[in-house]
Each structure stands twice: as structure tokens, then as C-alpha cells.
């Protein structure tokens, strides 16, 4: 019976002690502790979300870099291609010009040759006619009796020269 009868003294001291405990701990312990725990949790959460954000930012930047790089590569390829084309074109043009020039030169040379040839031929014809006259003169001088026959022979010879 003694065990289950609350003693008035202990009830009194318990009330006093527990009230004090409640007041002091609430004010000086639980509030600051809970506050710091909450702050710490907030800090951790913030840091984590910041890290997450940084990570996604990094990934974004990396992607951007890659696309930039790809673009640059494409640009470079394009430039190279263009340069190659340009070179080919220039070389082609040069070749064409040279060909044309060569052809022109060739033509001119041919013309000149032709002209020279015809001039030479005319010259020769003239020479030949002079020579022929001289030959004829000589022949006439030597063989005057057979004039007609001689004339025929000379004319035949001349026509063969044409």
C-alpha cells in the first residue's frame, strides 16, 4: 500500500523540479537546439539542391560546349571544302585559260605558218616562173626549132607545180 500511495513531499518536489526543468530546458536547451538542427537541415538541403543545380548546369554547359565544338567542326569542314573548291576552281580556270591561250598561240602559229607557207609558195611560184622564163629563154636560145613542143612541156611542168 505504501508503494502506491503518492507521498505529498515527493509530489511537491516533483512539481517544483519538473516545472523548473520544463521552463529551463524549453528556454535554454530545446529551442536553441531545435533551431540549430533546423538550420543545419536547411543548410544541408540547400547545399544538396545547389549541388544538383550546379550538376545540371554543368551538364548543360557541357552539352553547349559539345554543340559549339560540333558547330566549329562543321564550320571548319565547310571552310576546308570551300577552300578546296576554290582551289580546284582556280586551278581549273588557270588550266582553261592556259589551254585557251595555248590554243590561241597554236592557231596563230598555224596561221603564221600557213601565211608563211602560202607566201613561200607564192615566192617559189614566182621564183619558179622566173626560173621557168629563164629556163624557157635558155631553151628557146638552145632549141628554137622545137618551140611548140617545148612550150607544151613547160606548161605541163608548171601545172604540176601548182
Amino acid at each position, binding site marked *: 500500500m505504501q*508503494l502506491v500511495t503518492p507521498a505529498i513531499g515527493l509530489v511537491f518536489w516533483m512539481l517544483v523540479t519538473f516545472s523548473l526543468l520544463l521552463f529551463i530546458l524549453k528556454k535554454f536547451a530545446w529551442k*536553441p537546439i531545435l533551431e540549430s538542427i533546423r538550420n*543545419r537541415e536547411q543548410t544541408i538541403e540547400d547545399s544538396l539542391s545547389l549541388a544538383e543545380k550546379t550538376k545540371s548546369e554543368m551538364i548543360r554547359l557541357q552539352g553547349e560546349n559539345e554543340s559549339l565544338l560540333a558547330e566549329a567542326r562543321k564550320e571548319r569542314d565547310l571552310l576546308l571544302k570551300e577552300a578546296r573548291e576554290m582551289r580546284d576552281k582556280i586551278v581549273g580556270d588557270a588550266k582553261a585559260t592556259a589551254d585557251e591561250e595555248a590554243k590561241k598561240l597554236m592557231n596563230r602559229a598555224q596561221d603564221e605558218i600557213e601565211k608563211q607557207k602560202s607566201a613561200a609558195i607564192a615566192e617559189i611560184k614566182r621564183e619558179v616562173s622566173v626560173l621557168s622564163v629563164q629556163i624557157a629563154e635558155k631553151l628557146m636560145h638552145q632549141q628554137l626549132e622545137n618551140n611548140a613542143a617545148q612550150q607544151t612541156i613547160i606548161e605541163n611542168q608548171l601545172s604540176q607545180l601548182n
Partner: protein
Amino acid sequence: MVATAILSTFSIVSAFSSHANDAGAETHVNPEAGHSAVHDEHAKPEKYDPGKMIIDHIADAHDWHLWGEGHDAVSISLPVIIYTKSQGLVNFSSARFEHGHAAYEGFELNEKGVIVWEDKANTEVIYDISITKNVLAMMLAVITLMLIAIGMANTYAKRAGKAPKGIHNLIEPLILFIRDDVAKASIGHKADKYLPLLLSVFFFIFVNNIFGLIPIFPGGANVTGNIAVTMVLALVIFLTVNLNGNKYYWKHIFLPDVPVWMYVIIIPIEVLGVVLKPFVLMLRLFANITAGHIIILGFFSLIFIFGSMSQGLGYAVSPLSVAFTVFMGLLELLVAFLQAFVFTLLSAIYIGMAVEEHHH
């Protein structure tokens, strides 16, 4: 109050030293025989009474028994503070009672250790607000708790945002456990308001339970296994629940959602429930902790019960007894936490039921 407290402290120290001297002197005189009748009674070997020993250990006392038996006992005499209408506030050391063998200023200790009038015919009520063993043990536990908790708060303020260190690593999970799994789980978004109370209740019970398991001073007192202590704790919860109960709480009690003719049965049950909930809180903690102490002491008693039959038997039983006691001690460590947790959890649930918002 302050003056009394200072006086009490002084009287603890002086009582202890004077008593220690007494005990020393006594041991010197003892072998030379020639004692008073009272002493002779103690000199002959007393038959071992485990029931009395156990009750002595779990009950409150006006002195803190340390070691030794009978006249060789060494104990700390605690201050006695008594209020009576006729004599007002009286304050003296419990050493004056000489363990119930002497009366002082008209008061004496009865065989149960309760202060009564020396004059048995006097029926005036005695208000005994002495600093007893349980009061002192409770205060020491509370001071320890305050030092740890306030120290923790200061350290946290200094090391803001950093991880906890040392003993705080042990306490913080408990705080978080009470906050997240007890308060928030049971009360919801209003938990923050009741959290300091729940934390204080939890740690008060936990620390006192642990102190109760330490066999020597300043532990060993059966504070949380004392009905007065658990009664005050339950009272605090009772007041918190009923002073914070909202209209839904009271409606549930006095206008429950049942047919009107059933009110005759339901309302008395609900009203009884309001009182019964804290009452059960009080009993559960008291019974669990007291039972734990009784079992441990019981196992120890086995040594002396068998020892009183034959000395050899006593020695033979002791290893078994010690093994059982160690096992019980470990179990009690679990119970120390468990009962603190259960008390706090049920308190939180009762508060949660009282402040819960219903949306019908």
C-alpha cells in the same frame, strides 16, 4: 525557499560527516561488547527477509543508504523538512532520528520510514516535504540533464551548421526521433508547440530510468518507479491534453456521433477515458520500473536466501544469480528507453487526438 535549499545542502554534508564519524566510532566499540538493549537486538543475526529488503530498496527514504547493515550501515542523512500547523516549518537532519531509534522535536520515524508524531494520540496532519532519497536523486538527474542539454545548446550555437560531436551524437538522434517519429507523427503540423514538453518528459524519464539502474550513489533510487513522480508526469500530460483540447475533442466526448439513446453509455465511458488515459500512463511507468527493480533485487536475494540455508549453497548460487542479474540489467536498459518512449509516444498521441482538426 532559497534559504531552505541552502540549509538543506548544508545539512546533507554535516549529517554525512557526523554520521560517518559515528559509524567509525561504533566499529571500534563493537567488539568490546556491553551494549544497550536496543543494540543487542541488532547484534544477533537477523533472519534474512528478501521482501523487506526489496521494499526498503524501492521505497523512498529519509537517508541514502550506501553500504553496511544494521549498526555498521553508512548512509547519507538527508534534510527533513516538515510543515505542521502547530509548529510551522521545521527543518533538521534525518540523522536526528538515528534510523528510527530516536524522536526529535516530537517527531519520529515509524517502521515504514514515515515521519509520525512521537505522541501517537496526536492526529494533526504532517506535511512532510523533506528532501528524501528520491527527491535528491531526481534533482541530481535533472541537474545532469540540464547541464548536458544546455551545454549541447551552447555547443550548437558555437558550431552552427557543423555536425554534432561526442555525446551530442547520442542525444541528437533521440531528439530527432522524438521530433519526427513521435511528435510530428502523432500531432502533425502543431507538433512544434508541444515538442519541448515531450522532449523534457522523454529525457526526464530516460535519465531517471538510467540513473535508477546505477547501483551506487547517485543512482539506484527508484524515482520513475515512484507513483508520486509518475503521477505528476501524468498530471502534466492530463493538463496539457485537456487545456489544449479543441471543440472537436470536447464534441467527441459530449456529443459523439452515435444515436442519442447511446449517450447514456458513451458519455460516461468517454469521460472516464479522459481520466483513465493519464492514469494508465502513471501506472504503466510506475509498474514497469518498479517491477524491473524488484526482479533485479529478487535475483540478488536468491544468493542470501540460499546463503542463509547453507553458506556453500549461497556461493554456489551466486554465479547464476549474477548472470541473471546482468541479463535483467541489460533488459532494464532496454526498458529504460522503451518506457520513456512509450510514455512520450502515448502523451503525443493523446495531445494529437485533442488538437486534431476534423474536416467532415
